[in-house]
């Protein structure tokens, strides 16, 4: 239903730690693997072994380079899936009501049985979080693994999105942003969790933790001088050696 709920009891989403993401694409494939046999239609791959392979993915990892004048550049791996926006424009543009935001937890989903594959919601999403499946002709997007996180057939500690469970570096965190005491709220507050393209007004739920400052770009104060000063007292190196041995 294209009207956004006025209020969602929970705001489930992800924290993605750009300081920790090594760009391994594990989350990309795990997401594809889970979702191709789960929610809705499979995620197809067209020309799978040919010249121009083109498949549907719900999560992709970009690699950026950032550089300040006169400093060395840094590389940032940047995973991106649906941010489950509070003011999700992808939902309100949908003519069929296939796109909707869940009242209970804020997850934005596509009801594939109603989707006509017009593509308008993908146009409306600033983040490139929706992809039309070429074989099925329906819009695909991150489901926040709604069929895992509440799934009673899955052990309780594994009831997290597939991408979160698999991320080897622990760069992805799942939780409820409506609860200020949740893991994600705390982490986001502590590490300056940020919104992507805030000016566009989508109010994303997912937050990104910025990379910590790099010592080769933002040099730390040099407090180490004295530590490495040569022992100038008697005997130089040999003197030091003897005195130290004596103490052992």
């Amino acid at each position, binding site marked *: 239903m294209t009207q956004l709920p006025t209020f969602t009891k929970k705001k489930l989403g992800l924290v993605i730690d750009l300081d*920790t993401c090594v760009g391994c*694409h594990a989350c990309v494939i795990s997401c594809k693997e889970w979702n191709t046999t789960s929610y809705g239609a499979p995620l197809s791959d067209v020309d799978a072994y040919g010249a121009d392979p083109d498949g549907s993915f719900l999560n992709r990892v970009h690699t950026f380079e950032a550089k300040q004048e006169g400093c060395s550049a840094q590389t940032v791996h940047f995973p991106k899936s649906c941010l489950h926006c509070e003011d999700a424009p992808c939902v309100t543009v949908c003519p069929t009501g296939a796109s909707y935001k869940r009242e209970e937890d804020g997850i934005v989903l596509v009801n594939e049985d109603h989707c006509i594959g017009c593509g308008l919601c993908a146009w409306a999403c600033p983040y490139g979080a929706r992809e039309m499946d070429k074989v099925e002709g329906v819009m695909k997007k991150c489901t926040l693994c709604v069929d895992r996180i509440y799934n009673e057939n899955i052990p309780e500690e594994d009831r997290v999105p597939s991408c979160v469970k698999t991320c080897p570096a622990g760069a992805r965190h799942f939780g409820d942003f409506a609860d200020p005491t949740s893991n994600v709220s705390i982490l986001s507050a502590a590490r300056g969790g940020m919104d992507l393209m805030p000016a566009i007004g989508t109010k994303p739920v997912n937050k990104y933790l910025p990379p910590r400052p790099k010592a080769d770009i933002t040099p730390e104060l040099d407090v180490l001088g004295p530590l490495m000063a040569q022992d100038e007292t008697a005997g130089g190196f040999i003197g030091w050696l003897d005195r130290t041995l004596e103490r052992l």
Partner: protein
Amino acid sequence: MTKHHQPLLDTSPEVSDEIRQTTCYMCACRCGIDVHIKDGKIKYIEGNKDHPVNKGVLCAKGSAGIMQHYSPARLNNPMKRVGERGEGKFEDISWDEAFEIAAGWLKPIRETAPEKLAFFTGRDQSQSLTSWWAQQFGTPNYAAHGGFCSVNMAAGGIYTMGGAFWEFGTPDWDRTKLFMIFGVAEDHDSNPIKIGLGKLKARGAKVIGVNPVRSGYNAIADEWVGITPGTDGLFILALVHELLRAGKVDLDYLIRYTNLPFLVNTDNASDESGLMIRDENGKEMVWDRVAGVAVPWDTKDVKPALHGDQTVDGVTCKPAFQIMADKYMTDEYTPDAVAERCGIPADRIRKIAAELARVAFEEEITLDIPWTDFKGEKHSKMIGRPVSFHAMRGISAHSNGFQTARALHMLQILLGSVECPGGMRFKPPYPKPVEGHPKPHHTVTPGKPLNGPHLGYPRGPEDLCIDEQGNTKRIDKAFTWENPLSAHGMMHMVISNAHAGDPYKIDTLFMYMANMAWNSSMNTSGVMDMLRDKDENGEYVIPHIIYSDAYSSEMVAFADLILPDTTYLERHDCISLLDRPISEADAAADSIRWPVVEPDRDVRGFQTALIQLGVKLGLPGMTNEDGSAIYKDYADYITNHQRRPGVGPLAGFRGKDGKGKGRGEPNPNQIQAYIDNGGFWIDHIDPENAYFKPWNKGYQEWAVEIGIFDVEMPYVFTVYQEILQKFRNAADGKGALQPPDHLRAQLSATMDPLPIWYEPFEQSIVSNEEYPIHALTQRPMAMYHSWGSQNAWLRQIHGTNPMFISGELWEEHSFADDDWAVVTSVHGEIEVPVVRMDALNGKTIWTWNAIGKRKGAWALSEDAPEATKGFLLNHLIHELLPSKGDGMRWANSDPVTGQAAWFDLRVKIKRVPPPNFIQTQPDIPAQASPVGVGPKTVSYGKE
């Protein structure tokens, strides 16, 4: 429509009918996986959260296992070649016929000249079986791929401290505060390293990445050191210089746990020059500075001196420590002296040295865990220096890699940070000193097994694999004066030596799981030519090639006989303590694979096929008196084979009752016990035995108990390595065994008993003006060498590999987006697309490894981007160096270990516009596909 309403959703769908737990093999990391089976098909593969390696996580490759398993490139039957080598034309045959053909070639040579079989295995994890098989066959020509992979890392570690990084050791991720990682893109420990980095990041511990390229792990490093390739040794020795200068080394640790106090013979005229002074029992001596006499090093309460010239029994000598300090405290190693060559400002070097010192000594940690050392001394707590290191091929794949690895280990040891809390820790069966390893064997007796294991760690010239005339016994020339400590063999030399008939001709080349006609060879085009070259009689120069692969790879096209393997989900395997186990720093562990789905093709697990071939050949150990099989297949072998009484391939659940750990009779239900336990077995080390393992009495006892050692084997770290000095002495004309004259200078220069740096060979030979640029490859995290390209999901991530050009070179050559470049080395030329990268050492270009594919391979269409836009850097690399003008072609290898020097490559680049018809060069003509081309569309999960 005023009220928000939404569809009803089943949020608790049934995931699968059953979970089968086995071990991933999309790479050699060996994570535990839960394979969900639904309606007989694989529904989902996820990490096994109880598994010691991956603790529930999985990498991209692991999650793409479904696509690997159902790959259209899978081989279906045994095949024999019908076209010419390299064409890819085959005829399906039965297994009986395949064994018939193989035995037809192998039986006669075993009876007459077993060395005419060269059996080399690639990325496999069953070396304890394959090496044993080769030994039973009787050929000296066996090795796995370690020689071109990372033997520098392994040997550098073993010869210095009885273990290395790689699969031998790991940082103490939970306690380390400063972690320095050299030359790693991915490594074998893929997931553990990522899990570990995640832990450091969560704690806010600092990571320093030393790598010409800032990607992957280096992208998240808190400090990036964009070093110039091949200069790590110099950088490390400058750090050592700084630490020594400032007196920031752990003398207590050095005295207790290293051979640095040992007295070294300083009489240049002596045959024993540079070797340790020993007492009449052969015990190394130290100078007791209180008593003023030389005593055996392990004398109780000895106070060894670390400096001072002494004379013992008329021989002049001094402690190794002094030789070391004198060496590294010279101006040669000041930060200022090395800065420019390393591409690192001197101040940065000083700062990093200071930071190492600060964390090691000012942030010392202690664990209130008492322990007892091998001398019986009791310690009330464990003192930790929370700096740790890790390194891999960025260091080891250079011709100075062995000594660079040693330098890094020396740095760790000087800081006292090996095997202490917060430092780097070994994983059982390591630590294991050189003495704990076999020596190489090479004595051939027709019709009989070889006289011992092929590979090992020589203790001196007497252990080389050469005959009395100095002729090499092995086809790969491992363990010769040219590369004496080639502990893993030299697989990269096999094809060219066999082709040249140097040192002799062979009859059958038998390979397994190595794409030697493509990405695992240097000089790929040359190797393809050698494989299809014919002699004057029109016969192939290498007469027979048997190859086992599971997929339609480039190498398949060059084989005469194909033994098709299963996929990793269809076979038994064991990841054994006898080989490369999955142990943790505080536990021994091993694991299995088992057929979680049955093959639907006429394929057999290679190990089973190998055992069956052994039976057909009547090999001892596999065959009963009456010629019948001792083991019907690999599973049977895994269960019942004993290497030593009570010690077999699997350490867990031994004995009839399944309660035996490490030792015990075979248990007929062992494999089922592993399956019931999640596919692995683990035995934890008690906390008081978990650190200081080489010297920890409790650890040593435990290691004997579970069968790692037969006797306790405490030892000290050999920072000063005498074995190397023995070769130098030989080069100086000392001793009975003498190297050929042309190798004396090289041996003297490189077999230094203390770590050194020398310029990488290619760099020292080619003109640095003409070839000013370093060219490298990196492993992509989401691809495993060549075998990921058949994977419909993974190939979308890395279907092409541009050449990344540093910003500096980009501007120098005025490159623009979409440009291409001609890249030339002394050996060859390639034409490839380029991309700018600023976070890259200014003198360096690089690309992803093994993405380029030959047309027609891997069931891809011939216009696949892997074949049109992808490329191999290997065309620029050669197994031999260009001639130095001495009329000889020296190996492009480390002179100590024979490790292939992939990353020594020097090139020049020229900007060219993109070709009208997109095609990288060289463009190798297509091979025929014995399995056809994969389907147009994949919709996995659609019934």
